[in-house]
């Protein structure tokens, strides 16, 4: 993906181990590049949160019954208008429509089930493949902060 200002990249493909340092390194790599492209603090917060939730979901739920604790694949491309991050696990997938709404009164005291809802709240768009083992997060940089 080429851009006039030359500040672009992707797609990059990273195999991320289920390890805090490995996850932090991948997230930092993406966030630092976004900061250099002028994404504002609020955008960095949003993307960091969504990435963290998606990667956590991939390991915790996607790989819940996968032997051997394998890595997840993070693929990303970014420029000064948008970032696209795809996270894929090796698990059997799931039905995204079966997740209860955590904002309902009866679910407020349930400790789990908020990850996907947060991802959808902060990203411009979120899409799963049919199987449910790959999620694509798209975040468009707010208009006032675009250079081109």
């Amino acid at each position, binding site marked *: 993906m080429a851009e006039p200002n030359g500040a672009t990249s992707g797609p990059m493909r990273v195999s991320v181990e289920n390890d*805090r340092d490995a996850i932090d390194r991948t997230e930092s790599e993406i966030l630092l590049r976004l900061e250099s492209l002028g994404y504002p603090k609020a955008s960095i917060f949003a993307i960091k949160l969504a990435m963290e939730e998606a990667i956590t979901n991939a390991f915790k739920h996607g790989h819940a019954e996968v032997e051997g604790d394998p890595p997840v694949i993070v693929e990303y491309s970014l420029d000064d208008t948008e970032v696209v991050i795809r996270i894929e696990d090796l698990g059997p997938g799931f039905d995204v429509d079966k997740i209860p709404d955590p*904002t309902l009164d009866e679910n407020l005291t349930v*400790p*789990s089930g908020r990850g996907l809802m*947060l991802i959808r709240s902060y990203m411009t768009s979120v899409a799963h493949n049919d199987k449910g083992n790959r999620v694509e997060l798209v975040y468009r940089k707010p208009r006032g902060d675009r250079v081109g």
Partner: protein
Amino acid sequence: MNEAGVTCVEFIDRNILDEANIQAIGDEISELIDSEAEPKLLISFRNVDHLSSAALGTLITINNRVKEKGGQLRLADIDAQIYEVFVITRLNRLFEIHETTEKATESFG
């Protein structure tokens, strides 16, 4: 514990992300809850820049335990971005959140 009988907790890490870490935090706070008959617990987010849904889950568990013991929980010093997470998840309806630890301390019955 301060002179109002309130136990104040602050986080050391700026990012409350890692599940193992969150579990350890939850266990420590649970011990504090268990040590009091009707715990008055104040959690300050003064040093927190990021948190995850797992951290929210632990806070809910803490809240549930405090309520079971007839205690009170307050959250304070939450910056605007983190507060937005509580609003999006409607957890601002579940937790009593104050701007500062001073105001939170005054609010305990």
